[in-house]
């Protein structure tokens, strides 16, 4: 199950860091952040609850880049 979210992040390196942080979140199988399109595509693990996983993803991303935003 894949879903794409809009994000807001200012620098490309921060986007890379968000990608890494989101990818490590439980329930996330893989994650790609597209800095140019300001988009994050998350592939969830089977049976994961999307909204609660995304809350975690947002929390983890804010940890590495306080200025970022994910529009869930």
């Amino acid at each position, binding site marked *: 199950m894949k879903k794409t979210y809009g994000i807001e992040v200012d*620098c*490309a*390196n921060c986007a*890379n860091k968000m990608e890494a942080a989101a990818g490590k979140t439980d329930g996330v199988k893989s994650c790609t952040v597209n800095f*140019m399109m300001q988009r994050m595509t998350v592939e969830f693990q089977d049976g994961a609850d999307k909204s609660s996983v995304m809350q975690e993803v947002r929390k983890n991303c804010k940890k590495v880049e*306080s200025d970022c935003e994910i529009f869930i």
Partner: protein
Amino acid sequence: MNRKQRIMLIRIIVSAVIMVALSFIPSSGALRFVLYMLPYLIVGYDILLKAFKGIIRAQVFDECFLMAVATVGAIALALYERNGDYTEAIAVMLFYQIGELFQSYAVGKSRRNITELMDIRPDYANIEEGGKLRKVDPDEVETGSIIVVQPGEKVPIDGIVTEGESTLNTSALTGESLPRDVHEGDEIISGSVNMTGLLRIRTTKEFGESTVSKILDLVENASSRKSKSEDFIAKFARIYTPAVCLSALALAILPPVMNIITGNAGGWETWIYRALTFLVISCPCALVISIPLSFFAGLGGASSQGVLIKGSNYLETLAKTKIVVFDKTGTLTEGVFEVNGIHHSSIEDEKLLEYAATAESASSHPISKSLQKAYGYPIDRSRVFDIKEISGNGVIAKVDGKTVACGNEKLMKAIGAEAIPCHSIGTIIHIAIDGSYSGHIVISDRIKKGSAKAIEKLKKAGIQKTVMLTGDTRKVAESVASELGIDEVYSELLPSDKVDEVEGLLERKAKNEKLAFVGDGINDAPVLSRADIGIAMGAMGSDAAIEAADVVLMDDDPEKISKAIRIARKCLTIVYENIFFAIGIKLICLVLGALGIANMWLAIFADVGVMVLAVLNAIRALFVKKL
């Protein structure tokens, strides 16, 4: 410029003005410190805040942290040395912020430019209700509904014209500037712009399945598929920053300690200053931004030319392409067949054509269409049953109770009829009725106007080998190949043979040479996905091809292939330039900084200046019109 950027600009200007003014006001001691802290904090408070937050969350090594340590360190050094030279710290912060501002502005701007190029998303569809037009979300229109497209509007959903005549501008889709005329009964693809007349269209697909959605999907997801260079840079940045930070630490501590051990003066100030310079240089921004930006601009530039590339990784492969394999029909030739002769018929020519056209009536192959066209009358499908399609060989069907076999010589052999070979060049359809040979029909295809030039351009672009695969006979294949100047030909192939041939070619080539397969998407989806890179042309409307291919040419001009390759090469050149340039300058500055030759001013140039230049260079990838 958005609000955030405008505020930043004001902060930068205010801070710069104060700094210049302060240089004319003589001051000293604590007052001087307080005065100079004013511009520093104005321009850099958010960086300090972020760095602080980062430390709390154990996320050191981000650029805010680096900048904060470097500038605070420089200020501390100035305090310690009592020379009151705070300008350096302020300047570093100031230039860093200018760089950030420029980056976010340039990236935002190019993002908008590129999305505008592909501005084909329809906002609404018109539905007629009680004589009035109502605008609805295209997503809500069901298949089979009638929509109205007024002049000047975009066609929102694929469909068939039921009423009206008009001229369509398809340039956003195909890059082709020549307008297309449509009449009642014509198929029409979404994303084109209606120019002259009112059209009523019966939709044949949902919005999500329509051409325009597919293209948008493809373009928007393209930069998510990352290339090797992008992965390399991401990994590099991950190692690079901590490595430089540790070196900075070593640089600050080791030499003075060595000095003290050997009995000399420590020289802490000098070495700490050099370490701080190191930190300023260490920000990996120029690299991390310019590489994806180059690819993004390359993809955007390509789509403006009607070449859709599904990802940066394919751009990379395309640039390394050395062998181009073509499918013949519909790719190098028009794929429009005409009946050019009927020979050796044992019955009336007309009758033979009628049998052939009727037997082939269920097939969507271009050959069957040309038979029907030559026959000229509507076909009564109730006369035909038991249709057996023998892939690559032909069709056997019962027409008016007679067993009609139409196909190539292999088919004739299989049913035991003796075919009379033909001397004409073209596709020969042999026909046997009730097992006895009844003659053949010659169908030939025209070579596309641009084909010869396309091959020539590919050769000029450094393609080592061109290959043509076809299910057609050897004679036809060789005549086409020699006319176009193609190096190798493989003929009389079944669809599955094409995959085998491509696999053979893949095995024989050198590892770093890539093989591209160009097809029109009919019957060659497996080959498209098997090749290193699959290019589908004229594929608008063919979903299978859009899905299987890595590169989609929106019109069917074969010259676009060499263009796509040149766009890819230009983009890759820019990427490599940026990688070498950015890493090179940084390494040089690091060495100069360690030796004490480069001061903080040079360091900030190495950071911001390189980034600005790299971004400007990246944007060059967008300009591909003249390639």
